[in-house]
């Protein structure tokens, strides 16, 4: 397999691998680090891979290993799960079918459109700039706390919407 093929294969599964990593790690920034390292390992050990179908489960194993490695070094930092908990979560996460990730991603997109424009901005705010929620709170002259509570409710609504669509599917 040449680099171009590997690229295509990696990119096809990248999103799902990122979410898998995120469930174990405390932040998205850690996910970037792990994905970068894991990518190098995958490229180097590509001969281990039997078929394209096996890429995702194989990728997850490498990512899981890299996550545990990274967290071992960071174990005294904030928001780091215990090794036991990380293993429990990784075990549960491995059972999730790859299609589930892609499907939910799409469903979230359409569920977001159900929200008002104002609510959409609020929901996206935490991802734009560290501190955006505070800026929004001051613009709307409400307390940051109340905005966070509203955010929680909106997220619950989104999840409910996604889960209902899921139920309709099966």
């Amino acid at each position: 397999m040449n680099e171009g093929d590997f690229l295509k294969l990696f990119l096809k599964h990248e999103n799902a691998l990122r979410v898998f990593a995120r469930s174990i790690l405390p932040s998205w920034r850690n996910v970037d680090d792990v994905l970068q390292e894991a990518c190098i390992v995958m490229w180097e050990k590509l001969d281990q891979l039997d078929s394209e179908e096996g890429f995702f489960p194989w990728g997850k194993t490498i990512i899981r290993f890299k996550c545990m490695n990274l967290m071992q070094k960071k174990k005294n930092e904030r928001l780091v799960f215990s090794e036991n908990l990380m293993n429990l979560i990784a075990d549960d996460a491995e059972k999730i079918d790859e299609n589930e990730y892609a499907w939910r991603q799409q469903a979230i997109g359409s569920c977001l459109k159900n929200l008002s424009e104002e609510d959409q901005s609020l929901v996206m705010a935490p991802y734009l700039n560290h501190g955006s929620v505070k800026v929004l709170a001051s613009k709307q002259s409400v307390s940051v706390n109340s905005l966070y509570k509203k955010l929680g409710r909106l997220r619950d609504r989104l999840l409910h919407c996604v889960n209902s669509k899921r139920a309709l599917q099966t």
Partner: protein
Amino acid sequence: MNKKFNDLLHKYFLDCISDEEFKEFSSMLEENPQLRQKYLEHTMLDAGIRSHSNEGMEVVNIKEKRNPFIWIAAVAAMLLCIPAYFIFSQPAKIAVIKSSEYAGWESSQSTLLGAELESGILDLKTGVATLAFKSGADLTLEAPAKVELISDMEIKVISGSISMHVRESAQGFRVNTPNGYAIDHGTRFSVSISEDKKSADFKVQEGKISLHHDSGEVKHLSDEEASKMNVDSLVAIEDSQHEGFLNQEPNSHILSSIGNENTVIVNNDTGRVNKSFLMVKNQKRSDAVNRRALFAFKLDKLDLSKIKNARLSLNSIPTGLGEVVTMPTESTFQLYGIPDGLDEHWEKTGFLKWAAAPKIENALPLGSFKISRAKLRSKVFIESEELLNFIQFDQSSEVGFILVCTTPGGTMVHGFASSLNTEASGPRLVLKMNKD
């Protein structure tokens, strides 16, 4: 139970969970597989919202766009093994270092002139520097000052003094301080955090800001006005000259050791000691030219029982003898107190032989300090229980000290200004007394 878990779950993903809450969250996850399922659903939700918000910012998700230029860039990135998503989602740069005057920083980011900064904490140790935010606000810091850059429209001042010039495009810029925040409405203003980090002084030079105390109190300040944000409230500052005031310290005595200073050297070579310096040396290779400093203060006419605080200050200065590069990065110095009695009878002005000097073995350890070889010009303060007790229980109206270096090093001779030094002042003992 579920409502509590839900609460914690949101706090976790919105990055506002406390350490205690996180512990609770973790144990709930460990014990309950159903809660773990919920957690995984939310992880997927978080990822989904995140990628949709990135699309909103025109970041390309390679799977969905087929622009050949981006494809080539992605292949190039792949050969370096950087995930394509990563090259498009760098942490945002919010400010640039615009100017720097003798600035010395402690930061995990590059702080060269022109360096672009992300959110994070910056600590200015020396000098003055100005940052230009992408939004149009300028922030000038005077060392020592520590700020957290939050976004291009928000900072938190943790300690020290800063001044801001906020242009029209950055109106609404927010400055957080220990008890509240200020919103800028187009100004030049300064913020100074008190030494105990519990209050902040705001002074507007030009323009308008609004102060929002955590308690809800709001105050607007315009040209030339100033206000203090305390733990409980906002208090006006009636100092139209914006100079501040120095505290006069009544009831304190400042003593000098002039006339009672000496340096002893192991090989008694008088050519190697100089009255302008109190010299100290601890050489690894051989102790022939090792030195110790001695100095004493007279306490006649002082009521020792009234002393509530004692502080010794010394000025470290380079002697020019020996080589800095042969030294360890940092050297530790130990201060000893000479006990009352025979030990106090040492030669205070003329030449003192090594063997005739008071011995460390009989002396009391009173405190220690470190000096970096990169920062030989610095002020040293020693203030300890042991020092205070040593002075309070003195019976001879004289307190004498021995200063030694406990870190074996190279050829450099450490120096502290003696009272005869023309560049810096000699040892000072400041005693604060209880009021009658």
